[in-house]
């Protein structure tokens, strides 16, 4: 097995007086979709924000592609090859869709072939290319948020709840986009509450509770073990 693209070793993160992450151990294999699952408030978003450097790990280390990035500033982490799609989408509402995408092409001009591919994945982007991003619907904003991360090739994508609050048809579009990204060889760490999506996309799963990863294994094992789901995530059979 090759070296993982990302590894968290005993990561502790505090926000003010709250100890959110309490020794996270996490491995993201190359070229796979790694799911980060768990109930609300267990530290999934904090884990992603710690990796990208928005919040600092007080203890432990984050290693990306063999490089210790624990203390690097956020822009350096991003430029090392990590794309980030935050839970709140982070789109720039005062900028047009086009301007959002221009800004996301950090290394220069937008690659036209890649943009055309994104238009096939998210046709709405082409339709609303000149519109202010703030006028888009929730689903379109989410598409823009993901497309923005995808406009340049990254070794790893951190995606936080991309299907939250979206209609089923748009969830399908999102899932297809993530699948296409994986098929291109990218590694993805995906936080997802929608278990059906997690089952469809995930190769490996990590379940968090109380600020640490309490279970890791193949997604297929978690998907077929209702007792495990119930115990780890409080999912009942009705949920899927």
């Amino acid at each position, binding site marked *: 097995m090759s070296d993982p693209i990302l590894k968290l070793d005993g990561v502790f993160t505090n926000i003010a007086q709250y100890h959110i992450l309490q020794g996270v151990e996490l491995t993201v294999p190359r070229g796979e979709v790694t799911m980060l699952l768990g109930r609300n408030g267990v530290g999934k978003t904090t884990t992603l924000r710690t990796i*990208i*450097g*928005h919040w600092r790990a007080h203890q432990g280390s984050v290693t990306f592609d063999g490089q210790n990035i624990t203390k690097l*500033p*956020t*822009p350096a982490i*991003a*430029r090392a090859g990590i794309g*980030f799609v*935050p839970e*709140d989408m*982070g789109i*720039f*509402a*005062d*900028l047009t869709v086009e*301007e959002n995408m*221009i*800004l*996301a092409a*950090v290394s220069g001009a937008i690659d036209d072939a890649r943009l055309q591919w994104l238009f096939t994945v998210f*046709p*709405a982007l082409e*339709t609303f290319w000149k519109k202010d991003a*703030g006028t888009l*619907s929730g*689903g379109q904003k989410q598409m823009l948020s993901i497309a*923005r991360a995808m406009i340049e090739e990254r070794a790893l994508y951190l995606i936080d709840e991309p299907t939250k609050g979206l*209609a089923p*048809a*748009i969830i*399908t*579009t999102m*899932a*297809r986009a993530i699948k296409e990204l994986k098929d291109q060889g990218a590694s993805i760490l995906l936080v997802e509450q929608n278990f059906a999506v997690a089952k469809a996309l995930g190769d490996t799963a990590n379940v968090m509770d109380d600020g640490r990863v309490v279970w890791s294994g193949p997604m297929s094992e978690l998907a077929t073990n209702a007792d495990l789901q119930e115990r780890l995530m409080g999912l009942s059979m009705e949920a899927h």
Partner: protein
Amino acid sequence: MSAAPEHAPTMAKMSLTERLAPHAPILLVIALILAGLVAIPATSSWLTLTVSGLAMGMMIFIMASGLTLVFGLMDVINFGHGAFVSVGAFVGVSFLLLLEHMTGAPNLLWNLTALMVAIVGAMAATGVMGWAFERVIVKPVYGHHLKQILVTMGGLIVVEQLIIVLWGPEEIYITRPEALKGAITFAGAALEKYRLVAVGIGLVVFLAMRWTLRRTKIGLIVRAGVENGEMVQALGYNLRMVFIGVFVAGSALAGLGGVLWGLYQEVITAHMGNQTMILVFIVVIIGGLGSVEGCFIGALMVGLMQNYVAFLEPKAALISNIALMVAILMWRPTGMIPVVKAK
């Protein structure tokens, strides 16, 4: 899995009010100018006051534009911004005094060349000073508004005292370059030449700033940074470096404003920057914190209001801009063109 339906949204026809709402701030400026036309008995007086108001507004805009971007981008309240106005005025006037042979000659080209040298010198000095101010005074207090207010006000006092040490405690009276003295007559109205030049410079600065913000990548980074700095960093941009650049540019613009304001008033003092800060803060607040367009429109309104009211009811001039701010904040509590901020 079936693909998501892609369709254009259907929209009901907007009412006239809804269509005009985005343009309300600029319409308000036009309404103010028309109100002046109605209230001021002689058209020639109205035209003189309007040009004067626009000139004043342009100068306030130049001084305020940097401040609004600094606040919008890094949430920094810089009460020391007036220091750059004062230093710009003193450095600029020093250059003009050195080039007296050029400013005293009745030759427009020579006069404008001397003015440009003074402006470039003032902007260079205040730009460098802005860099030092950010590194020494602002950087240690990021994220602490109360400390920012106290420390930057302290910085202002230090700079004012340094001006007194270097240039003396007396106010310095200055004369405008020869070709910019006097007025031209247009439609029966006397229009001061210097004010027309100030309007021209203000327009050039506004258009250049707007072009930079809308047509260049660095402009996109600044606009996006005002809205959601964290996300800009997550895309890979070093926002701290961008902020230092904006701080330096804003300081240099304040220096330019200082030169123009000094020549407008024909007298400079160490405290002139501090005195203009009241108008500058009013403009930044009513424009919408972080909004360059709002700042521009706000500055024009303040300049026009001040001139019209001073003519119609001199005693009311002092409170006219405060009243304007109160009225606008009651209408739009976050300013005329509020900037969307990520939560």
